[in-house]
């Protein structure tokens, strides 16, 4: 299953979060991509959303990405079945955190979100297996 870790952010936190998401993607891809987590899911997409410190306003940007579905790959033209998860991150927390502490904080938010996702993921998608793999990969690196 392919993995994408990306972000939707306010300008002032974009680079800070991008440095974490690219590192996270590099660390997790070797763990997740060789495996099949069932349900015919071809891609797991993580969207860190850090647009507004008002949780309700930030949630507006999460809703569209908390879903499973299919999309047409812009490069290959093939349909891709995906599971998406949006992880809200308070921009003020990003700005006030020491840079070295930010990756752990953001990783923790991802694990929390996957522990109790905001929507019902496909039944045959083995979320618990994925969560266990992510936990052990993040603990090991």
């Amino acid at each position, binding site marked *: 299953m392919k993995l*994408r870790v990306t*972000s*939707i952010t306010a300008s002032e936190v974009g680079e800070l979060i991008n440095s974490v998401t690219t590192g996270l993607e590099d660390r997790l891809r070797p763990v997740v991509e060789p495996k099949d987590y069932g349900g015919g899911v071809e891609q797991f997409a993580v969207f860190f959303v850090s647009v507004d410190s008002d949780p309700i306003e930030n949630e*507006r940007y999460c809703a569209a990405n908390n879903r499973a579905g299919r*999309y047409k790959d812009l*490069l290959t033209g093939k349909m891709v079945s995906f599971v998406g998860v949006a992880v809200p991150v308070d921009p003020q927390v990003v700005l006030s955190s020491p840079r070295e502490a930010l990756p752990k904080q953001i990783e923790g938010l991802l694990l929390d979100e996957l522990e109790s996702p905001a929507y019902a993921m496909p039944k045959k998608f083995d979320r618990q297996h994925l969560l266990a793999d992510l936990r052990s990969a993040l603990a090991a690196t």
Partner: protein
Amino acid sequence: MAERAGLYPTVRGDLVQMNAGDVWKYGMSTDPAGRYPAQALGTLGLRMDIQATGTRPQMYVAEKIQLINYAVSNGSLPPGNRIFK
């Protein structure tokens, strides 16, 4: 915006070298998170940067200024923009 340095496709059908943080497309939407989510962000290695919010006329002006500034600096539109609106 590009997440990493590398080759990115353009809407004109070719590839362009971009650095991390380079703009791939300027756009505006009443539902930004819903307009581009999995398809563009999932496929192309891009992230979304919300640069401004406001009324529709304000955003049309802001978008046009960004496109003109980009074109003046780079000699072309961003890789993901097809036309000057």
